[in-house]
């Protein structure tokens, strides 16, 4: 057989392509459930981690259903709409117009404390960065944050997924009085006692700025919801305070 004939060459190429295509597509379809499962568990793991629950991927499933009380989908007017918050792909949402975006919100209850978890998505230096930030029940103080990235520079920008960077967000506030300030990642270090700033990563300025932009953009989208919720929360807090005043009074009279 002459392997250098034109017809043979074409035939060989065609058969090879069909075999390879069949092989790869069946591998992709066969492995997809395993891959999707990994991605789903990792997301649950990250959501839990933002409210301070560290668990390996295998245990995430169980704890997720235990701690995450509700999953909401909001529009940018702060109204609740139909949909599955967990399945929303923020990567495609952030590309839409602001009023067409679906905003997922997760509400967790850990040790009797309600915390609001907001998924984040933004741009780093080389590719997308994402994460979750959790707010205390006053919708102001940050309880925790986790970040991750696709391909930031190893040892520099990639450090945003390390604890030393993420831990700095805990206890910060996204409002100054009634004004929304977000949280800024500050090159050269945040001043001592700054409630709205954290230290940037040396050598990772563009990634750090990306985190700032991401927080500002994503949190801004939720402002209508925050404003709607705040009066209710304030009334609740007032009630709680009055309760304690009453108890104090009680103890005085006794």
């Amino acid at each position, binding site marked *: 057989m002459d392997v*250098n004939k034109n017809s043979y060459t074409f035939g060989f*190429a065609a058969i090879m392509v069909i075999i390879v295509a069949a092989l790869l597509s069946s591998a992709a379809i066969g492995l997809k459930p395993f891959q999707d499962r990994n991605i789903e568990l990792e997301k649950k793991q990250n959501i839990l981690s933002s409210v301070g629950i560290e668990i390996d991927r295998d245990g995430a499933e169980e704890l997720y259903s235990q701690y995450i009380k509700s999953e909401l989908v909001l529009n940018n007017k702060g109204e609740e709409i139909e949909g599955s918050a967990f399945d929303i792909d923020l990567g495609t949402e952030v590309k839409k117009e602001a009023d067409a975006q679906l905003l997922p919100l997760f509400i967790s209850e850990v040790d009797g404390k309600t915390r609001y978890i907001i998924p984040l998505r933004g741009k780093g230096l080389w590719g997308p960065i994402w994460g979750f930030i959790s707010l205390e029940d006053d919708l102001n103080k940050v309880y925790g944050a986790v970040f991750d990235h*696709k391909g930031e520079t190893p040892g520099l920008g990639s450090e945003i997924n390390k604890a030393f960077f993420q831990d700095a967000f805990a206890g910060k506030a996204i409002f100054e009085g009634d004004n929304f300030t977000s949280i800024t990642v500050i090159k050269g270090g945040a001043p001592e006692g700054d409630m709205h700033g954290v230290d940037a990563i040396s050598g990772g300025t563009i990634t750090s700025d990306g985190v700032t932009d991401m927080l500002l953009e994503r949190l801004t989208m939720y402002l209508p919801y925050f404003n709607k919720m705040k009066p209710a929360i304030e009334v609740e807090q007032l009630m709680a305070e009055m309760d304690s005043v009453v108890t104090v009074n009680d103890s005085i009279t006794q």
Partner: protein
Amino acid sequence: MSKDSLFSKKNMKLLSDPLNDNNPITVQVLGICSALAITVQLKPAIVMAISVMVVLSVANVLISLLRNLIPSRIRIIVQLVVIAALVILVDQVLKAFVYDVSKELSVFVGLIITNCIIMGRLEAFALGNTPGKAFLDGLGNSFGYGIILIIVAFFRELLGSGTLFGFPVLESLGVYELGYENNGMMILPPMALITLGVVIWIQRIKNSKLVESK
């Protein structure tokens, strides 16, 4: 053709040659790009070496099996298709079963396709040799590639981050108390090139065969 066993002395040279005298990185200067990119830490370097080993050995055997069937005019395309298919398979399997490692390697698994060592071995060896020999050649060359990766990654992680496999070696040895500080340069690409240069330099001091006569 002589019928010598797969593990004859001649065949064993296929395994040992690429480790030193004919190392794909330090002597043939192939596969430099990945050697520079993923040697910041030891763990990804080792996983990369294993992935290349799987891809190169299997591709070598496949091409060697097909060597009398491949039309010579499209042989490079055939080689590329075989490599690309294997790399995608490896990537998919890593994503499904060792998700953390696949995240760590990110784009670099895909870049195995562009690793010149693999196409170089297919073109230079597998097309003209039996599958057994091609397998040994693939194994030998990926060992040669892997060992350089691991040497470079060892020094870059140790001097750049003070750790090995993420374990803080220098801290537990108390080196920092003597005033030592991690060299941030080591985790940047230029120092990968310089470290590799030093490895080549040392190899040439030890191995006089590699030094060109004046």
